[in-house]
């Protein structure tokens, strides 16, 4: 997916607030691209523009040879499950009736560790499980690309770490391109095959981590030095 010259501004209290200022970004079809940045730097705006939930003032978002980004699956900060539907019906929410089949559902339930909870309602699940349902729902849609907007931000440390490992496992199996938005440097280093720093409305320096194998030891010398580098870079932008 390629993004060129993306601009977006909002009117806030009569003032024009330009969030994205001609952003260019290339997203790999198979890797996990992590967009890292402070709160309010435009990460979610970028994601919403790609998902088609908002319209850009200017710029182009295209997928492969096509002029539109293709089928996009989105996982939001909150699970956004339909409270009146069971887990299985939530998972199949985006799938057309004639294309729904038990086999795919069973595969997704197994993939996301939800076997036995098919008939449960969202309120009966923990936060982590609800996010897994949201992930299964996005995968059931068979998207060309997945967008994830700080999906684990509201989870506790242990659940977040577990979910990150599960996401890596699922990514290795499904091999879908993912754009993952976060403000956590640790999360970016745990998941990203490419890390892009978003600051001042454009994409700054990007880091290729494609050669670093999963699972990653964040306390290793290599990862600590990368973390230091990222912190220095972000602090530089903040000044």
């Amino acid at each position, binding site marked *: 997916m390629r993004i060129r010259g993306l601009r977006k501004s909002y009117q806030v209290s009569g003032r024009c607030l330009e969030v994205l200022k001609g952003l260019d970004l290339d997203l790999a079809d198979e890797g996990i691209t992590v967009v890292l940045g402070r709160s309010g730097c435009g990460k979610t705006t970028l994601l919403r523009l790609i*998902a*088609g*939930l908002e319209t850009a003032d200017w710029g182009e978002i295209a997928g492969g040879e096509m002029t539109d980004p293709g089928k*996009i*699956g*989105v996982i*939001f900060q*909150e*699970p*956004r*499950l*339909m*409270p*009146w*539907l069971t887990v299985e019906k939530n998972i199949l*929410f*985006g799938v057309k009736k004639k294309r729904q089949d038990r086999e795919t559902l069973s595969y997704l339930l197994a993939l996301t560790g939800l076997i036995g909870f098919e008939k449960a*309602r*969202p*309120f*009966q699940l923990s936060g982590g499980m*609800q996010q897994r349902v949201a992930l299964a729902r996005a995968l059931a*849609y068979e998207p060309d690309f997945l967008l994830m907007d700080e999906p684990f931000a509201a989870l506790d440390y242990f659940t977040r770490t577990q979910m990150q490992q599960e996401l890596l496992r699922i990514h290795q199996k499904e091999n879908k391109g993912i754009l993952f938005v976060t403000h956590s440097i640790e999360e970016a280093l745990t998941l990203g095959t490419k890390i892009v720093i978003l600051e001042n409305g454009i994409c700054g320096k990007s880091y290729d981590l494609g050669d670093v194998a999963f699972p990653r030891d964040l306390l290793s010398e290599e990862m600590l030095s990368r973390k230091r580098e990222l912190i220095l870079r972000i602090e530089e932008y903040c000044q």
Partner: protein
Amino acid sequence: MAEKEKSGGIRRGWETIWGMGILLIVWQMAAGSGIWSAYVLPPPAKVARALTKLVESGVLFCHILVSGRRVLTGFSIAFALAMAGGILATQVHTAEEYYGGLLEFMRNVPPISLIALLILWFGIGEISKIIIIVLASFFPMYLNIRKGFFSASIRLLEVGDVFRLTRWQKFCRIVLPSAVPDILVGMRIGLGYSWRAIIGAEMIAASNGLGYLILDAQQMSRSDKVIVGILTIGTVGILCDKIFSLLIGRVAGVRGAGGVG
């Protein structure tokens, strides 16, 4: 938790029986004091006798059935209109600008004030009676249905956008299910209003129904039968309300106490 709720329910049941018992004692004492004549305040025993007679003869059930049919017909028409109005308001943004003013006007007009005109236009048959019930129950249902439709979570609607649902699909699959609790609350209030309107409706030259029973008994100076009629309307109303509160409870139980997550 369930046992706690069950014991709470039983306690509430006993409290209600106690309350009713105290009311009966006070009523009996007031009637027996001789301050008021049996015509003004018939004693509970006289009312019970009238009730037994009406039940044994089957007359009371006939009146209940006739009034129930009228309430159900009026309520169903009002519900269909309220749903149609709510759907129109959500699907066609400018629609409400056209009929909103008229609705607001009609909401403030008591249905009973229209009786003279309704008789003139529709005669003294069933139509006038049903229109009174429709007018009485439409507004609480419309307002609740409208509120339910308009308060569908934007976050859930965005999920529909992500899956590229059409406007109508989003309405059927997100807005409508989201609004179910409000629709049920509207129906519960609307049904209560329908029963309350039955007296007004059956003031229009009725020859049967609970409203007729009360008005006829009034003219025959049978206060005991008037009280039987009032008690019957109240009891049937409570039963209908219980059904809806059970339904609302079930919906709330299915969705959990939380929001939309």
